């Protein structure tokens, strides 16, 4: 344990790293200490779509996120991992301000999407959300036809041109790798699809408005391995085209599909860096413990 600590200090890669050595970071976090995150240098070299700086969040009086600094690189897949209840979903939902819907939430700090502040006064939340796509843990297709589900974001924008809608519908469904399965039943209810298909439909819906960033909250947690595989393939295909931020509990998945990985613990970002580094040579012993399944 101590060896790893020393290596880290010797290398001194982290910008925000203080000199205080932690005998046990996790215990320190749990006891409420202000433990800084370890962020790999590789991150800073990337071009960033989403920049989260010094972000804090409270549910009522209870703080759920502490001093999050997270820059999501453009066109790459970034995965958020961490034990249950550490605030992954909360962070993700903050990106498209879904937490506005909860009355008790209070935030500090800022996020920027391609240079535009997300939490500035006067930001049009609706416009903002249109620039992102979000997929939830549980598939949530609307009780409408498959076609209407996919073109819903365009409908609410007032798009009425049938040809445009059909074109985008096909493009999105193809993008979500579900076109072949549903092309003959576009007018059927979306609820008649299987769970995996529904989730891919939700992804299609999320990419229909060509968002700048795609937020996926455990998209595979309710699916079987085959469906999971398909979604993983899909994410692989979407890489490069979209900036993707994905929450997952599955270490293999994170290592398979993501370019960058961030580990969170009790509302704090613990370590953030290229996936390969995080899984093979993490700077922190705790990270290694977590990714190898030794705690949590």
């Amino acid at each position, binding site marked *: 344990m101590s060896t790893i600590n020393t290596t880290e200090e010797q290398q001194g890669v982290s910008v925000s790293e203080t000199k205080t050595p932690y005998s046990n970071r996790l215990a320190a976090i749990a006891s409420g200490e202000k433990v800084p995150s370890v962020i790999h240098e590789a991150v800073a070299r990337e071009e960033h779509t989403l920049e989260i700086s010094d972000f804090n969040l409270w549910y009522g009086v209870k703080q759920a996120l502490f001093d999050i600094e997270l820059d999501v690189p453009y066109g790459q897949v970034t995965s958020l991992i961490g034990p249950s209840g550490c605030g992954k979903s909360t962070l993700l939902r903050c990106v*498209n*301000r*879904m*937490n*506005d*819907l909860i*009355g008790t*939430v*209070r*935030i500090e700090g800022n996020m920027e999407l391609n240079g535009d502040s997300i*939490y*500035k*006064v006067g930001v049009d*939340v*609706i*416009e903002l*959300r*249109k620039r*992102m*796509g*979000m997929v*939830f843990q*549980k598939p*949530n*297709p*609307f*009780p*409408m*036809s498959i*076609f*209407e*589900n996919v073109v*819903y*974001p365009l*409908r*609410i*924008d007032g798009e009425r041109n049938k040809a445009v809608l059909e074109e985008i519908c096909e493009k999105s469904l193809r993008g979500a790798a579900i076109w072949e399965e549903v092309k003959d039943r576009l007018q059927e*209810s979306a609820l008649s699809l299987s769970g995996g298909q529904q989730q891919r439909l*939700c992804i299609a*819906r*999320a990419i229909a*408005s060509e968002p700048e960033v795609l937020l996926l909250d455990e998209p595979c947690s309710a699916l079987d391995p085959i469906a999971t595989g398909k979604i993983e393939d899909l994410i692989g295909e979407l890489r490069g085209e979209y900036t993707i931020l994905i929450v997952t509990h599955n270490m293999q998945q994170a290592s398979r599909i993501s370019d960058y990985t961030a580990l969170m613990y009790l509302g704090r970002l613990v370590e953030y860096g290229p996936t390969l580094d995080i899984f093979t040579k993490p700077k922190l012993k705790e990270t290694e413990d977590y990714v190898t399944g030794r705690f949590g």
Partner: protein
Amino acid sequence: MSSEVDQVAGEQTRSGLAKPARPRMKHRSSSGMSMLAHGEPMVWLTGGALAACLLMIVGLLGAVLYFGMSTFVPLPIVQVELIDADPNDDQKRLVTGEITKEEVFDLSAESLLSEEYAVVNRVIEDTVKAIGDENIVANLPTLIENDSEFVRRDLVEAEEKLEYYNEWITTLERELEERIASATAGGRAIEARMAKIRASSDGEELEDYRASFQTFRGKRKALRAQLKGNEDAIAYFNGLTSNSENAATTRTGQPGEGSSEDEEEAETPDQPPSKLQPIFDAPRPAKVAAINALLREQAGMNGEKTVKARRRMFRTGNKSKEVNRPTFEWVADYQMVPGSEERPEWTIVAERMEYGRFYGVPRQFVLRHKRTIDTEEEDLASIIELFDMNLWRAGLDDEKNGEVLNSLEPLREELKSLRKKTIDEFFNGFSVTDNKSIEIVDEGGTVVPLANRDEAKNYVELREVWSTPEIAWAKFEQYHDEVRERLAERYSLKEHELGMVSKRRNDALKELRREELKIDAKLAPIYREKQILEDEMIALEKVGVSSDSDAYQKLSKRFDELTVEAQAIARQSVNLRGLAHDIKQYDDQIEIIDGLIRENDQLGKMAAKRFGEDSVAAGAALEIVKKLNEEKQIERKPPADKVAELRADLEKAPDYVAPTVERFFEVQREADLEDREINENIARITKENSRYLLICDTTTSPAPVTLSLDNIVRAYPANQIDKAEAVGVYGSRWWEFISDDPREANSEGGVLPAIWGTVIMTLIMSIAVAPFGVLAALYLREYAKAGVIVSVIRISISNLAGVPSIVFGVFGLGFFCTGVGSYIDGGPENASWPVLSEGRWFVILAVLAVVSCIAFTLSLSGRVRPGAHATATKRLLQNVSTFVWIAAVCIFAALIVMAPFFRGFYQADLPNPTFGKGGVLWASLTLALLTLPVVIVATEEALAAVPNSMREGSYGCGASKWQTIRNIVLPHALPGIMTGMILAMARGAGEVAPLMLVGAVKLAPELPIALADFSGSVGPIPTGPLHADRSFMHLGFHIYDLGFQSQDSEAARPMVFTTTLLLILIIAALNIGAIWLRNKLRKRFQSGQF
């Protein structure tokens, strides 16, 4: 560790009560316990509860269905003969009618003795026969003694009860006193009061006990009297036996009953001897005792005193204008002559437009033919009449008089022969046949057979008469339909065309009223300004400004100017309507007189021509006419003067009203012409229909009863019709019920207006409640931030559902009818709301603008960045802005409510209210209010049931709040919302209590919606516009009215069930409609169309 837990859990699930040691054995040994553990008994308990509920519901529906469906079944007509008290009266007493009810009741001596003598005797005979005792009179004392035995037993019981109550009463009294005493002694006023209140409730209990005590005291008294009576009776009958024995011994020397029997036979040879004679002859108390004893004997010695007897209720109908007889009659079996019950073949049931049902045997069918009188005959007759009546007016001397009379003679002869000729011609058209006789009627109305014709008489009518029931009935069937068709035509003329004309008249009148109001409206601001000036002057005086000062003078000058102006206008303000109406009246009078004058002139000229221009008679005729017309001219003068006077008054009005006044007269003239034409048509139809008469014999009146065919809705020979015809009658009654207006105080006829009233009211209610309820629920669930206020509102709404419906009725009456309704009718003044002066109104308008601006700025500056912390100032700003907004809304409302410019939409109709009274709109809104909580609660639940993931998904796609609600939340919640609506509708449609206050009436002359005209009569399809202000009939209220307000409750009761059935069916139909709509909407919305 975890495996251990699993094990324990597994054991527990296997057998809830088993001990871990020997689970299996235990399991096998106590299957009862295991049953309990599996909840077996609960299956039966819950299932039983469900079964009981189902049974009640099915029973309720079944009862309504059975009674409702059976109302219209045609029953056979039964005729029975009653035993008559007076044997010398050979008039049979017959009761004829449909049997509507049958019941068994206790026959008692007391009830019997109110019956007629013969009936009582028969009951005694029957009873004795039932007992089968030969020696009954001799045994009577023993029987009475037996009876006394029971009476004594009852007496003991009554005494016990009395004692019991007595004890209770004394205890309670004592307690009460003590309590009050202790409370007063305690000195605390409130305690004393509480004690008094409690004491008063105990006092009520005490009163109850006292009442029971009194009842039993009465009972004891009666029983004692009965006992005494029994003793007397025993003495009486004992005396009787010994007397008769003595008498028998003294008279014949032979003791024994046989001889006494012989003797009675000798005395009254035409009456059979009766051993029971002593009972019949006994004085009343002894007789009561004897009958009591006999009845007790017959009932068996089980302690019963009475014998069960059967009685049936006959619907006897036959009410008429002259006799308002009861239409239902109980007939007990013992009142009937044995074997007299029959079903007379030819008795028919006739359902009449007026006076309800009629039962009688057709005796004659009469077809009346009026003789047509040609102009020649008419002219002759009127000339002769002119001379006969008015010769003295000519003022001739006797000689000339004689001459005139002489010259009249040929005319008389001519008239006579002319008449004879036409009468001959007329009569020759008819001949007597086997089944038809002919009667003729002269001027005086005397009817004689054709054979008895008096050549000298002037016959004006001939009647064809068919005189056997069969033919009379056949003729009835032949003519009835056409008569009814004509009647329908007459109805349509009367109700629709006359109605339309009178509406035009009213509109013209309203036009005049509007002109009046225009003049008055000019006065209002002047008066208002005068009032202000006056106030100012008084104010000046108060501060001590002298009346000579400039300021004061200026004011007073302006005041005087205004006064002059107001007077000038007031002079123009005449009662246009009154004047025009009066002028019209007098004009009509004048027109009638003019018509008479013209007729007289013509008659005079005609007579002169007939007698030759220069004859004395011609001169006399012209003289008479001149005199007559002079009289008429005198009669004409007062109305003509009056018209001139009124016209002069009318001149005072400003010139511009003249065209309106002229139009009024024109409309009235046109309407008069149309009215005349319609009335002529109506008279023609009435005359034609009055030609057909059905004359029936009845058992309710000695003389035959004449029925006019157009008064009969439906008739059938009840004892002859077969199944198919019975079904026909049944169907036609149902059809009449749902497609016609009610008659006979709603107890007969149809309920069409009530059906439409119910349906329209329910629909308006649904349309009103849906948006309000759904929007309110949307706000509560989707927009409002959870907090104390929202919870309070939510609880209040739920509690609103529990407020008694009559409270809503009172609110509706107070707020809608007399408040908003009066406001709509005639502005704030009419609703007795405060009115602002114009100046103040504009000032307040300015205030409103300022307040709104402030509110707007406040709420802008109070906005918080989402997710950010709301500072104390911001929160304060938010709250303040809310209050300012509320204030702005209040000011806005006040501005509308107190607007001085608004004078209502129906001012011309005042003081008759249009919306300022109960009406279908207000009833619907009241019920909408009543059902609002149901809709809000249901909608809220439906909204809450929409999964949050749906909402988040939608927001995630960039949808705004309203887009999410519209596209995702509402479609998802729609079935739930519709279910709420259906519940609300069902509740609203069946509600009666509030409706009584806000517009439901017993009989609405006009439907709230116009119905299609259907071959002359009103059809069931609505076409016309909705009149939301009209009062209406409602099935629920109709039921209440039938059940509780009807004079003829026996006739109304069956209709109660039928109407209830209909109400249930209509509510069901409305609900099915709503469910259908729900399914349709569900499909539409969920297929994702925007």
